[in-house]
Structure formats: C-alpha cells, structure tokens
C-alpha cells in the first residue's frame, strides 16, 4: 500500500469525535423522532401502535388548532421582523456615532437578551396585571383609565402584549448584529457622499441600507426562526390563553406531548413544523445569496 493511501484516513480520524457527537445527538434523535411520529404512543406503553402517516394526516388536514397557532406565531414574527428589527437598526445607527457614553448604551441595549425569559415574563406579567398592574396605573394617572384592562387576558390585546415582551427581550440581538454590520461599512463612502452634498436620508438609503442588505437578511432569518419557536414567554405570561389566543406551534407540540400524552402525534407536529421552518430558511438563504 502506498504511503499516501495509508495516511488518507487521518482526516477522518480527526473528524470522528465530531461525527460521533453529531450522530449521537443529531442523527439518532432525528431518526427516533421520525420513527415515533409514525406511532400512536403515550410515551410509556410497551406496545406502541404503528399507524403509518395517520398522525401527519391529522396534523395537516384536521388540526385547525395547530394551524391557528402558526398564524398566531406568524403575527408575532411579523411584528418582530418589522417593529423589533427597525428599533434594533435605529438604535444601532444611533450608537454607531461618536456619542458620549456610547458603550453604556450598547451595554444597556444588550441587557434584555441575556436575561432569563422566565424572569422577563414574570416582570411583564406584573406590568400587564389587570388588577394592580403598573401599565393600568400609568394609564389611569394620565387620564386614559378607559384603556386599562387585563392586557394578557383580553383576546384583543393578549397576542400583541406577548409580542411586545418578546420584542423587548429580543431586539438586543438584532442591535448587536446590525452594529457589527454598520462598522464594516467604509467611512470613506459617507465622506464622499457628504462631499457630493448627500443628506443623511440619502446616505441611509443609498449607502447604509444596500451595504447592510446581507446583514438584514441574516437578522431576518434569525428573527423568523427565533420567533416562530417562541415558547418560554408564552408559558410564563399566558399559558396559551385566553382560550388559545396566544398558542404557538411549540406550545401545541408541548401540549400534545404532556397534556394529551400523544408522543407520536407531537413528533409529527414537530416534524411538520421543522419542515416549514426549513423551507422558509432555504428561501431566505437563496435571497441572501442573491443579495450578496
């Protein structure tokens, strides 16, 4: 055997630990998930019943609650994509200038993402409380007492109220990535534009935004994936209520697994959900390539 052939397995040896970990924690669980999704199983019984694609049929064709939860998560995602990311971008542009104490602002803006979702959720529950909440107290003190309500329990406001918590918690991530993106734009471009008489608005539209396009797409992908999987904040603030108005796909999966004890069905819901997110990500990655 030639010496070149002898050493050819060396790279694989180095890769082996990573491959092993990936197989154990990635491929095997996915295989088990796929297998379980074909069963009618409560997670304990020794005799799970094979039902083929029955769970998938039920998820896709009969489970209106699951699709409603998609629409609701989509609403939160839409708000996050627009309001949250616009706020993140504005703040990133603001602190990208030579401001006194800009490091303090940067730290403050990045604080919410590092806080526990549970803690954030609990704080907002107090703020939104319909009986003795701070928000209602403020509204009453400025003469808007008529607007006071149980924000998380009113079907007209519950989902938006939860979205606000999610956006408050999440805008810091977008802020940091936008800030990093802004710092890669050469200052000379702005200087040249200023010399040519371009105003701030023109510079934003014709320099900042185009050069930030790949970052915008990246932030959008992360926002969509992160927001569609919103869960902990829902558990703490509304538990999916009132009457299912804040249920999201992950809540539905959780509820199928631990509420209805239908492990197979929950796995099928998980796979359908994963496939949809994968499709969205692929479309966005294609857009990102185009933008690049």
């Amino acid at each position: 055997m030639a010496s070149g052939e002898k050493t050819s397995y060396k790279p694989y040896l180095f890769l082996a630990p990573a491959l092993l970990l990936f197989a154990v924690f990635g491929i095997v669980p996915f295989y088990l998930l796929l297998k379980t999704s074909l069963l009618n199983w409560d997670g304990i019984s020794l005799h799970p019943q094979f039902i083929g694609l029955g769970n998938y049929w039920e998820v896709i064709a009969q489970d209106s609650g699951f699709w409603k939860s998609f629409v609701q998560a989509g609403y939160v995602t839409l708000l996050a994509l627009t309001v949250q990311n616009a706020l993140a971008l504005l703040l990133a542009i603001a602190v990208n200038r030579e401001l006194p104490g800009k490091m303090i602002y940067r730290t403050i803006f990045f604080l919410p993402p590092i806080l526990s979702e549970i803690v954030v959720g609990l704080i907002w529950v107090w703020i939104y409380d319909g009986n003795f909440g701070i928000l209602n107290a403020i509204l009453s003190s400025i003469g808007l007492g008529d607007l006071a309500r149980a924000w998380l329990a009113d079907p007209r406001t519950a989902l938006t109220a939860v979205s606000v918590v999610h956006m408050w918690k999440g805008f810091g991530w977008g802020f940091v990535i936008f800030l990093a993106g802004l710092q890669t734009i050469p200052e000379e471009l702005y200087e040249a534009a200023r010399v040519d008489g371009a105003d701030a608005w023109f510079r934003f539209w014709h320099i900042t935004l185009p050069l930030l396009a790949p970052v915008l797409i990246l932030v959008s992908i992360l926002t969509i994936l992160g927001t569609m999987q919103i869960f902990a904040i829902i558990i703490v603030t509304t538990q999916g209520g009132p009457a299912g108005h804040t249920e999201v796909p992950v809540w539905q999966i959780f509820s199928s697994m631990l509420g209805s004890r239908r492990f197979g069905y929950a796995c099928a819901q998980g796979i359908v959900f994963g496939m949809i997110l994968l499709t969205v990500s692929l479309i966005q990655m294609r857009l990102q390539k185009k933008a690049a």
Partner: protein
Amino acid sequence: MRRILATSLFAVIAGVWVAGCGGAKTAQSNGPAPIRVWHWMTDREDAFNELAKRYKEETGQEVSFELYAPTDIYEQKVRAAAQTDGLPEIYGILGEMRGLASFIQAGHVRSLEDVMSADGDAWRNVFFPKALAVNAFQPNNTYGVEPGVYGVPIDVMSIQLYYNKKLLAKLGLDPNQPPQTWEDFMQVGKLAKEQGLIGFVSGWAELWLIDCYATTYAIHTMGMEKVQQTYEGQVAYTDPDWQRVFGLFSEMRDSGMLAEGIVTMVNKRAEQLFANEQAVFAFNGTWGINVYDTMNPNLDYGIMLPPRVGNNEVVTWGGAGSSFFVNAKSDRQDASIAFLKWLTDVPQQKYLLEQTKNIPANRVAAADLPEKLQAFAKVIDAAIHPRLFALQEDSKVIETFDKGVQSILIGESTADQVSQKVAQAKEREASRQAKLAEANGQR
C-alpha cells in the same frame, strides 16, 4: 502518532460509554445503597429531608429525596427515565389514571395489594379509603390493569372555597355566614364589584383548576352517573344539564365578580391576591392554608363548600394529594416498601402535618387537626376525583372543554356554543379511537 491518536480516541469513547452506563448505582457507601425518592413537592422538601435523616438514624438505611419542580419538569423527567429504565426506587406519577395504567402495564410500578392486605389489611386500614382509591384499579377496569392498590398516599386534599371574613363584613354581611346558594353567591359577587373588591379569584390559566370547578358543578347538578355516561359517550355535552354547567360560568362573568385576567392567572398569583385581602373568595386546595398563613399570618378566613345550585349536596373534588409508587424494576422493593410504611406511620405523618399543614393520609394522624384543616378533612370521604371514574374523559376533550370555559369567561362564546364545540371534539375523539381500535383488531 496514528496509534496514539487511535488509542486516545478509543479511550475517550470508552470513557464516555462507561460513565454513561454507570448510573446512580455507582455511588456506594458503607451501608445499604440509598433509596432514591423523586418528587415535585417544593413545600415539603425540608420536611422530607429531615425525615430521611431520622430514618437513617433509626434504621441505618439512607434515603435521598430528589426534588424536580415544577410539575411539568418533573413529569418530563419521570417519563424520560421510564423510557430508559432509569426510574428511582420510589417516585410519584402525576396525571390521569390512563397514564398510571401505562406505567403499570410497562412494568414500572409494583402492585402493593399483597402488602396492603397482609395482617388483615393492617396497612390498608391506616389510610383514608378515598386516598387509596385514587391509586387503585377495580376489577374489570377499562384500562386492563390487574386490580389492586398501586400507590401510597402521603397526604389527602380537597378543593373548596376560601372566604375572607373581613371583606364579607366590609360588604355588610355576616362574616360567619358565607353565601350557601348560587344566587346569594352571585349577589355577593356583584356587591364586591360595586365596592371595588375582587369577588372571586383562582388560577384559571391552569386548566385543571377550571376543570375541577366545572366537574364539581357537573356532579352537583346532574350526578356522577350522568357525568360518567357523558364520558362513555352515552350523553352529549349539548345536554341541558351540561349547558347549565357552562351557563354558571356565564353568570359568574356577568356578575363582575371574577378577578381581572383570571383566565391567564396562575394559581400562585391568585393566592397572592387572596392572601393580600384583595379578593373575597378563592377557589383553592388544602395547600392554600399553608400558603395563606405564610403570606399573611393575620388573614382571617373561613372555608366552605362551593354554593349549591339546586337542592343536591355539593360534593367537592378531593382524594390523595400526593402519592408515591414503588419501582417494580428496582432490586430494593422491600426496602422501599419498609420506608413507605414508616413514612405513613403516625409520628412521621404528624410531623408532616406540623411542618406543611397538609392533611395526613393516615387517619389516626389526621384525627386531631386544626380547625381549618378539619373543614377539608371532613369532606374527604365524600369527595370525588377523576381517577375514581370507571373511565376518564379523553384529554383532548377536556382541553376543548376547559378552553371553552375560558372563552365564556372572556365573553367570546356562549354556553350553547361551547357545549356544541365540546360535543364535536368528543365525536372526533370517539371516531379517532374507533379507527385505532379497528386497526388494532385487524393486526
């Protein structure tokens, strides 16, 4: 070099493998291996640890209580452990009878019928019968489980109405005469609203508490037999009696007595509102006494059954509060049973009562209870619990039911609409179950 790399890789993999296979039994001490007990009861952690210490002193047997909370996390832990045969010697199983049946049929729970029956039912006679009944399967049960007792109750509970005496007096009512009828209850609720007080509070974001309230009134208005017939599919949820039950929630909403945001309120928050003297009534369980007394030692409250709608007696939800099961796959079953016998003996039960203000499952230990606990204890023998039904309702139907009640409470649906929605959910589930049974039969 290659050999070194290959050997290192092998060593790492082998190390991980060996560590993974080791499990909890690798920890050996000089005495017998410890009995591990998994539980979710944060309020009883210190008391359990103290009892474990006493047991070690008395017998030399080490017992380690391992707390996993909240209950959702605990349930996940137990289910995951069951799938890998990693359950401890003693553990609790939460949820429905159907779930307990699966654990038993998968060989994870030891039947205690033999030890309960030994010496002329000596151990069995220690407990409140209702507390044992929620952990027992009757002959010819629908789950196909061998009849007998499977769990050991540690305490018993029931769920009733707490009322604040000071606030009743503030409303101009006799603080020792809380409303006994539904009409009077609604009147007090309206009065509370007019005075700027919260009339009624409960953690109705937690669907089981809504279910508990609704089931109490369903059994009260139509009787246990008819409720059971509904679960069996012989009576529809569109039946006038069920519509009446849904209608009660509409009346509560219309009276204005409900706390703002009750449908997304967890019970901890509801308990705070009652303890802080902001609500006149609270629907809560026996554990509330400990919670309220800790939060506000000056709170002056009484306990009453939910008010009557008709002439029937109100039977409240109750039974075993928490129970332990013995792992049938453990090689320490006898030691585990010996510990549970000790734990349910009078001195230990009295100690738990003292420390946690829960009603002991041991009748002798519960003979001399403080006044407030007596209000709960006296209804235990007549209490109902979903686990006592020959067949429990399907969880998907329960979910639709409870969410339906929430939608009534927020004014989104009428009682009639909800009863139809639940009836449809029931039909869908029945059809799904029939298809599954058919597929099983063909196999």
